[in-house]
């Protein structure tokens, strides 16, 4: 039963370091395979259409990348400018060096503003710092309002995709989880299920004291925070409650107000193929005198949590990510294993870089290898992040941290053989002869001894009956 399967999947509820068993579980989950295929095919088609139908999209993506490169090379300066702009507007800026500090700051703001009910719009950064348990521990109710995130909150699960967090759910499993939450038996059709969500969440918005959001961008020049949503919950979260808190990684700052359209034009196209997401909310300070709605108090929490550790290294490029999810949709590995298998908050190719860097290279040994290095991620990325380069960089880092004598010996031998053509020819003949008992239809599916490590997870092409060199000689006598 898919419904119970999702409810009991341990990898859906907790971050973990069990990559291999999680992958096996995902591959065996038939409904998940259907959902992943549907999602990634649809969004990738959107990505190709979005960029393909847009003249100069490639040059615009280069420009966005250049703005990010420039900003990261002057990040200290732009953060100080952002702070000054927000102070000028009457907002407050807080600095959180790690997840614990971020939680403390936000819980303190909630208490100081006497907030009893907090609504949240979708934010991966708040997932990253595990914010909700800390707010609940302080006796304050917190409600996710993105529809997918809301379902995950009441199912006690975590997101499995950057922009489609509940992709692992079916309409049946949503009807069950939501039905239990509201104490009614619900029909399975998406429209009714969505409207039940609207009804429940409207009541929360009506009563909420504080709204917590992430930030897609923040403009140093003006102190502007930008939220992009399709549902409108980002608007509600910043319009109805009297306090607005935005939690943002330091890399999300951009210099100028006129930089925004450069990114807005590529963000939705990269994510879904839309020209723009339905709602782009551009917030500059609190409500002005005479205005009837909007937050009266604004706090921006700037989060480091490992980012400065990356900023000074060749992995700096990973901080250009605008969290659109395109690399997930493009990745042949993500498309089969889904988000929960990766173990960290961020999944897919970009997660395979961020999780080892922020969490631990040693504890996540498989992630840099969960890629065929085909480059589809880089081709789909709106800011053209060279993800394959960094995955290889992480593999190097792993090797430096824990050199393997077997690997050194193997590559040493390989290099020696390649430099001696007669030896290469001999080795080819021997390997053909040795592998014959294990080969079928041109593939080696099960090798003994040291080879078993390879064939337990992938096939190896068997040496051809006649080598390329022999055939070349025949054709060119």
């Amino acid at each position, binding site marked *: 039963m898919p419904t119970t399967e999702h409810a009991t999947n341990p990898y859906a509820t907790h971050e973990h370091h069990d990559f291999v068993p999680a992958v096996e579980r995902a591959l065996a989950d038939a409904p998940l395979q259907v*959902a992943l295929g*549907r999602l990634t095919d*649809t969004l990738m088609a959107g990505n190709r259409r979005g960029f393909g139908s*847009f003249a*100069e*999209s490639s*040059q615009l993506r280069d*420009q966005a990348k*250049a703005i990010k*490169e*420039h900003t*990261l*090379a*002057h*990040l*200290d300066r732009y*953060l100080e400018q952002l702070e000054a702009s927000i102070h000028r507007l009457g907002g407050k800026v807080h*600095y959180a*060096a790690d997840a614990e500090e971020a939680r403390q700051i936000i819980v303190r703001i909630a208490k100081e503003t006497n907030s009893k009910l907090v609504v949240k719009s979708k934010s991966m950064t708040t997932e990253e710092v595990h914010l909700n348990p800390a707010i609940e521990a302080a006796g304050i109710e917190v409600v996710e*309002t993105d*529809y*997918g995130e809301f379902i995950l909150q009441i199912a006690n699960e975590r997101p499995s995709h950057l922009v*489609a967090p509940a992709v692992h*759910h*079916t309409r049946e499993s*949503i009807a069950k989880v939501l039905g239990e939450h509201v104490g009614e038996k619900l029909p399975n059709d*998406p429209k009714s299920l969505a*409207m039940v969500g*609207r009804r429940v969440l*409207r009541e929360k918005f*009506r009563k909420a004291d504080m709204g917590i959001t992430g930030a897609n961008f923040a403009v140093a020049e003006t102190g*502007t925070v930008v939220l992009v949503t*399709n*549902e*409108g*919950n980002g*608007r509600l979260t910043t*319009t109805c409650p009297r306090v607005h808190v935005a939690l943002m990684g330091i890399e999300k700052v951009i210099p100028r*107000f*006129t930089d925004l*359209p450069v990114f807005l*034009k590529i963000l939705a196209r990269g994510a879904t193929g839309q*020209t723009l997401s*339905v*709602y*782009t*909310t*551009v*917030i*500059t300070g609190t409500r002005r005198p005479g*205005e*009837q*709605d*909007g937050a009266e108090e604004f706090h921006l929490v*700037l989060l*480091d949590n490992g980012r*400065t550790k990356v*900023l*000074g*290294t060749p992995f700096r490029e990973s901080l250009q990510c605008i969290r659109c999810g395109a690399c997930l949709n493009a990745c042949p590995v993500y498309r089969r294993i889904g988000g929960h298998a990766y173990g960290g908050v961020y999944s897919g190719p970009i997660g395979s870089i961020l999780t080892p860097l922020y969490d631990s290279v040693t504890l996540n040994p498989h992630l840099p290898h969960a890629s065929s290095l085909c480059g589809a991620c880089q081709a789909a990325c709106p800011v053209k992040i060279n993800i394959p380069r960094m995955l290889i960089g992480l593999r190097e880092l792993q090797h430096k941290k824990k050199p393997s004598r077997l690997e050194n010996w193997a590559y040493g031998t390989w290099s020696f053989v390649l430099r001696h053509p007669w030896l290469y020819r001999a080795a080819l003949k021997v390997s053909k002869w040795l592998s014959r008992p294990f080969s079928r239809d041109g593939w080696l599916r099960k090798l003994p001894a040291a080879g078993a490590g390879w064939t337990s997870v992938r096939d190896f092409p068997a040496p051809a009956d006649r080598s390329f060199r022999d055939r070349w000689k025949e054709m060119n006598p």
Partner: protein
Amino acid sequence: MSTREAFLANVRTAVAEGNRAGNIPSHPGRSKVGYQGAGDDPVSKFCTEFTLAGGFPFVAEDDDAAWRKIEEIIRRHNTKNIVIGVGEVMDRLIPAGRLSDLVGTSIVTCSDSGEGNPNTKTDKLINLSPRKADKETYFGSDLGISTVEHLIAETGTVVMATRPDQPRSISLLPPVHIAIARRSQILPDLFDLFDLFSPTAETSSPPACLTLITGPSKTGDIELKLVTGVHGPGEVHVIIVD
């Protein structure tokens, strides 16, 4: 060292460390790259894009046609509670008494003083007293009628800017939103909007909230089936007048 100082010192060190590799790019500045514009006919470009996004554009040949369209939408939804924004074009299209003639409809103005739209005065005649809108009014409303700041032809986008008489709720809380725009408010490209609101020596800051609305509220969270109206309005109309 305070948290702030330590935090920024960390950033400074990391920036310097990373920059040592050299090749520090300058800001590329504003360029024409990616400017798509709207071609010869911005109105038709807007209508095409807005329709693709799931919205309902209507180009009115005159004010009367615009009013008939508004009336039709109100009647079709069997609307009871309307919140209405303030503006010159609003007074022109919906003169005194027109809305309140729709029997059983209560109208609430977004004007700060409870005045500013003639409807609020005539409502008393049919015993639907005009009120200044409060939070509960917006939560209880069925339909919002607003003016707009701009339309963007390239993307099919309605742009709202906050003002005392044009709150965010009017285009957010009712399930149906009617936006009234004038032809002259159409901008060809998204770049044009941000150029207009970019701070200059004269204007220090953009409005408290600029909202770009491109179609009805959407979610695909349930098996990727498109559902509209999950949070914001499920139906968005733009009526374009001269």
